[in-house]
């Protein structure tokens, strides 16, 4: 049987056109999801985690989402140096748009290695309200949004209130043998340890340029040390169970744990304290830089500063906010005059010498 070889009438829609059309419709249907997933209004922010996660989300991240209609993805992992290690390893594209919790040594390194975006008042108008000292402490690659200091804390049920950094570095002299085993020391990988060592050097007439008195004090203190840790949160169980009676500690964490009923109190020793700025910066490979700059500016807004400082027990990054609660003013730095009394050692020098200091510390404490 022969087939009918007459040409078939040309279809209105060819098979190829039909497939193209179906594919187009499919893509169009999927488009809203694709566009949503790649929306430029998503911002990945690396900042506080752990017990502080809720505080930062409530006082900073959610208000930012509300104001800008953006979606913030919170990355709560890593310490300042770990976060910078990620930025360096990823050559400026670590997966987050804002590094929200760097410290001056990482900011200086980031500027030198050109891995953090420059920040000026043009992109971040609120920069002009920051503490004047901040521009001397960190280079122009971010904002110093929070100020805290290395305070001294003590167990108020075990020992009398200390007065001087000497009470920490020479505990036997002030408290006798009963304090043996109840002193904590920190690895210099934690800036808290570096600052305490600088105080030890200063007690003996030294400075960051002459740390020999600090090593002598460390050797003398060692027999009294019962606990050695690196990260600040690692010390908390020892404060809680009463094993550690005296310690240098960050003012913000101290305030937080005092408010939660730990048997400790904090003070500013008579020699003064060293301050630390928490800084936010934008890695050069950030995907959403425009929104990241908005975030840096928002982080310095007065109402955000107030809400965060009160919840985090830290001092603000700007000095033009008034009407703080009296209890807050008692332990925090809120005026330029108070900032002037806080020491800010050269973080560039600290960065250059920290390795040698750490090795020296390890050799003594090992």
């Amino acid at each position, binding site marked *: 049987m022969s087939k009918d070889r007459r040409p078939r009438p040309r279809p209105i829609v060819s098979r190829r056109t039909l497939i193209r059309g179906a594919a187009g419709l499919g893509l169009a249907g999927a488009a809203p999801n694709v566009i949503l997933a790649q929306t430029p209004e998503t911002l990945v922010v690396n900042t506080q985690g752990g017990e502080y996660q809720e505080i930062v989300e409530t006082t900073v991240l959610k208000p930012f989402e509300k104001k800008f209609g953006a979606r913030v993805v919170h990355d709560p992992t890593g310490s300042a140096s770990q976060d910078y290690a990620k930025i360096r390893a990823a050559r400026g594209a670590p997966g987050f748009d804002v590094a929200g919790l760097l410290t001056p040594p990482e900011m200086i390194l980031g500027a030198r290695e050109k891995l953090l975006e420059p920040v000026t008042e043009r992109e971040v108008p609120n920069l002009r309200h920051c503490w004047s000292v901040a521009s001397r402490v960190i280079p122009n690659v971010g904002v110093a949004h929070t100020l805290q200091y290395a305070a001294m804390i003590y167990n108020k049920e075990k020992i009398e209130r200390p007065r001087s950094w000497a009470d920490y570095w020479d505990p036997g002299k002030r408290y006798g043998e009963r304090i043996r085993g109840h002193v904590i020391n920190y690895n210099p990988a934690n800036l808290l340890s570096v600052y305490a060592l600088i105080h030890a050097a200063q007690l003996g007439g030294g400075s960051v340029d002459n740390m020999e008195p600090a090593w002598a004090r460390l050797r003398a203190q060692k027999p009294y040390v*019962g606990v050695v*840790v690196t990260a600040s949160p690692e010390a908390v169980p020892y404060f809680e169970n009463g094993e550690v009676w005296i310690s240098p500690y960050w003012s913000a964490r101290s305030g937080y744990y005092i408010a939660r009923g730990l048997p400790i109190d904090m003070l500013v020793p008579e020699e003064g304290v060293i301050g630390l700025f928490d800084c936010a910066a934008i890695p050069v490979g950030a995907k959403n830089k425009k929104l990241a700059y908005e975030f840096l500016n928002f982080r310095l807004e007065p109402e955000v500063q107030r809400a965060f400082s009160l919840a985090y027990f830290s001092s603000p990054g700007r000095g033009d906010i008034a009407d703080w609660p009296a209890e807050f003013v008692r332990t925090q730095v809120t005026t330029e005059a108070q900032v002037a009394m806080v020491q800010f050692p050269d973080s560039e020098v600290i960065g250059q010498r920290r390795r040698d200091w750490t090795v020296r510390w390890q050799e003594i404490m090992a």
Partner: protein
Amino acid sequence: MASPRALGGDVHPAMGPPVRHLVSAHWLLAAIPALVLVVFFALPNALLLTVSFLKSEAQQLTGEVTLENYRFVLSRRLYLDAVIRTFAIGIAVGALDVLLAYPLAYFLVRTTSRWKGWLIALSLAPLLASVVVRTYGWYVILNRNGVANDALLLLGLTTERIALMPSSAAIAIGLAHALLPYAVLTIMGGLDAIPPNLERAAMSLGASRLRTFLSVTLPLSMPGVAGGFILCFSIAISAYATPAILGGPATQVLATAIYGFMTQLLDWSIGAALAVVLVASSLALLYLASRLGSRQVSL
């Protein structure tokens, strides 16, 4: 008999697909894991090796080639102690795990209980919990206010609380517990491969149970024992979490020292030099172990 080539190809009629296809398939099979190994192991290690020879100034890598990093690491007692501590802990963990795992593995292989499957699953159950969780269990036991100190005081063995941690012993105990299932699995494999007829033959020739075990079972299970030891040793010398928790900053091993330099001090040159020391010395020890193992087998 005609060769396959003489028959018109690389193939014997009964062989199925051509040999060259099989050969290329074999190459492909080997090439994929080899590629993964090159990209994710050889290249990163080459980079690490390169960085270990670069000078670092103020936490920043420079292009200057130097041996200073190795001199720094190998001339300081602190890091030599960390090297010795790392390998001493590795050997202790390997030996402890083999000693503890052998009787358990022997029982699990030989038992005819209907609960055998459950017992094997139970012995491997610790793997279901994170090593961090298991290590914190030891932290609860070993710290100054922990259960171990309570027991020592209760039994009158000590008069005051003592510091059981941070210490190398605490790290070894924590790691031995964490890695025990690996030794059990490996030794079970070794024991399972021994034909039961050999033991029966030895006993039928008059050997006692003990003699049979010492002369037949134990020597034949040595590949499993060596495998278990090497596995536990290798994991122990590169472990980070357990030494960090039970050793702390004053009882460093190589992994915690490398972590400190890489991510806390941001000094990659020294961190890389320490990592090269760890990789090179562990490869040398493993090579030595394999040479000794092969000599044992040939004897």
